[in-house]
């Protein structure tokens, strides 16, 4: 039974808006990114039809899937009003752990599971420092970044892990004719998107990112949720590690430099507000695909790939500016 208060109605019932309106209201930025990808594909295809060869598509989608998977967790963290600049270093550490276990002859499932569990554990510590010690997440994760990056290089001496057992290299396999990384990316994005949109947990993350004090005053356990979102982010970093560590025959202890920035950028360009409280994981995945497409397109139209970072930089500024303008207009 709910408490009912009846006041005489003064105006007709206010209805729920229609489907298309909701689609544009909820996924505006995502649709923009999707449109950009489609336009880019169309244009580059006209210039060079080999752009849509199976080989190149695999490079674009499967080769960058690990970034998209890591960006899912990052999007959740940013939506909650935090940031993690240590995820690149974490993936480096996790890849080394995973590869070392595989080479040492442990069953491959252990080598796959370990990075997920260790990622969760590491991020549980980070989340606890953020939630309970109330240290800003950028500070905690900057510290974690230094510790992990420095520790990794000292530990491995910068050497590569080689002689990985073939069974370990899951990213090079296919299911139903589709590359495993692509399947990972799509399945994880869809599950995470549904969970963020339709679960009470996901909803609470948006509330915390939007106004943590109001969330607390509404009975949302803000501290527990903060730890939880970091732990989940750690799990996604672990899953991303599996794809990253198994895509080549060797594991380099130098992960792609600035990986954390690429991941954060994907979230932001995908529509996740850097101030917290809005955005989706669909956006972060689409933005990752957009970067990969731009990178590949530059090669196909014979432009130096170094322009990729500059283009992405412009996209970041444009996106954040649009977000700020939207907020100013609204609040």
């Amino acid at each position, binding site marked *: 039974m709910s408490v009912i208060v*009846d006041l005489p109605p003064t105006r007709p019932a206010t209805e729920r808006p229609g489907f298309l309106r909701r689609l544009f209201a909820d996924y505006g930025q995502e649709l923009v990114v999707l449109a950009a990808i489609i336009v880019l594909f169309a244009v580059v295809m006209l210039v060079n039809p080999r752009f849509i060869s199976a080989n190149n598509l695999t490079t674009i989608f499967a080769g960058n899937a690990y970034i998209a998977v890591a960006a899912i967790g990052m999007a959740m963290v940013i939506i909650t009003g935090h940031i993690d600049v240590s995820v690149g270093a974490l993936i480096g550490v996790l890849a080394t752990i995973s590869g070392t276990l595989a080479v040492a002859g442990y069953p491959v499932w252990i080598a796959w599971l370990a990075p997920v569990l260790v990622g969760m554990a590491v991020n549980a510590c980070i989340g606890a420092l953020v939630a309970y010690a109330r240290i800003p997440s950028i500070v905690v994760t900057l510290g974690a970044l230094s510790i992990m990056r420095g520790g990794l290089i000292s530990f491995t001496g910068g050497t590569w892990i080689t002689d990985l057992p073939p069974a370990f290299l899951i990213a090079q396999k296919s299911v139903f004719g589709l590359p495993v990384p692509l399947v990972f990316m799509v399945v994880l994005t869809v599950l995470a998107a549904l969970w963020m949109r339709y*679960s009470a947990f996901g909803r609470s993350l948006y509330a915390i990112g939007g106004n943590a004090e109001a969330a607390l005053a509404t*009975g*949302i356990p803000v501290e527990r949720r903060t730890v939880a979102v970091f732990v989940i982010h750690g799990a996604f970093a672990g899953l991303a590690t599996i794809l990253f560590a198994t895509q080549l025959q060797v594991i380099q202890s130098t992960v792609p430099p600035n990986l954390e920035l690429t991941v954060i950028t994907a979230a932001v360009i995908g529509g996740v507000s850097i101030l917290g409280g809005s955005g989706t994981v669909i956006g972060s995945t689409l933005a990752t695909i957009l970067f990969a497409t731009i990178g590949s397109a530059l090669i196909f139209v014979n432009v130096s790939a170094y322009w990729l970072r500059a283009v992405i930089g412009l996209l970041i500024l444009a996106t954040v500016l649009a977000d700020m303008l939207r907020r100013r207009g609204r609040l």
Partner: protein
Amino acid sequence: MTAAPYVSLTGMSKSFVGVKALKDVSFDVRPGEVHALLGENGAGKSTLIKMMSGLYSPDAGTITIDGKEVRFASTRDASAAGIATVYQELLLFPELTVAENVFLGNYPRRPGGWIDWSEVRARTRALLDQLDTFDLDVDAKVLTLSVAQRQRVEIAKALSKDARILIMDEPTASLVESDVQRLMAVVRQLRERGVGIVYVSHRMPEIFALADRVTVLRDGGYVATRDIGEVDEAELVSMMVGRPIDSLFPKAEAAIGDTVLEVKNLNHGRHVQDLSFSLRRGEILGVAGLVGSGRTELALTLFGMTPATSGSISLEGRTVSITSPRQARDLGIAYVPEDRGQQGLVKQMAIRKNVSMASIERFSSGIFIKAGEEAQRALDAVKRLRVRCRNIAQPVGELSGGNQQKVVIAKWLETNPKVLILDEPTRGVDVGAKAEIHTIMGELVKQGVAILMISSELPEVLGMSDRILVISGGRLTGEIDRADATPERVGMAMTAHQSGEAA
């Protein structure tokens, strides 16, 4: 005694987006007097002092300084005319030192434009010494100072600009008793030196101890100006409140049932001290008190934001311990906070999501929210409480204050609360929505909800409550039944000295 006024305001009027905040008010201050400005929240005190300090420009009316008409285009003009203001929320820079703050924007220079820091420090020292504040280090960062010390820094800052008129907006609202005494000494000293002081306060003892004259405003209009010797406390309170209260606040008659909430000897810090009271089904219990009396702190303690350090709370006869808002919510307590933007709403979120926020676990199946049911509930709530909005997908931040407040109330009604705590339910809400919120309260008590209503608006407390608790200095200073409640009685208890007997 009757020197010519230094500053006079005549026929001042000011509207904000169509709402008259001040209507034809006249006010003057003589050198060497303390002129108290009295009125309820929303009476127009702040608007008046903001016009005197150049922050607002009046729609109509004139300001004269020493008999000459002036216009203040900015606070700089007012400051040049010798008018300085110490606002309730002190406007100092915490990371700068005392001396840096005092002369900020006004630094004495050496030739070549360099700031003369030794001069800054020496003159700050001299100003503080004049205020008998020998214990304050001019090199201390402001963030290390107490509220009372900061206030003295503000006063020194005003004096550094040779203020002839000092406006003090509720200067004692957040001070402890010993600091109040010290501040009053400073005010008297300034008066001896010929400074005219505008003293805004609700606290009757201070007004009678300090003021030479008192002006009362009500609803943006001028009521009267009197010499302090001509009036007594009861008269002032009725001048502040005096309007037919019952016609404005339709009190719904609800059957009052069993005790729902029983609080015994509740303590938290110095704002909640040894409070005991009970609340029954269908009852509206008003809580009155001045700013800083501990009204809101009581609510925060009951709701688990600042858990009680001792004392007991029982709900429907069962003793409970409440250590988090979540626990309070699950026990059937709801809290509509004083500052809805800060604690009540996620402004960029849709109305639908704000409405469901406190109750979302109740209509989730498995891990997923039943989206259709959520939308339906939000639609129903919007219709029932008459929230004026485009649709339920509209972000709450776009709604007016009154409609935002209805969304906060709707959010808590979704939890079927037994006890609803309303903290300033109609603050910043327009008149129409205010009446609607009062109607909603009436409907709720008819259905057996127990309401604890905190309000700094005396007419609202008197008009809506079945019983009134009065808090002063964190202690209960009165418990008055509706039949016996008069503005004078409640006002007396509100200003009762902290050591006054507990009811």
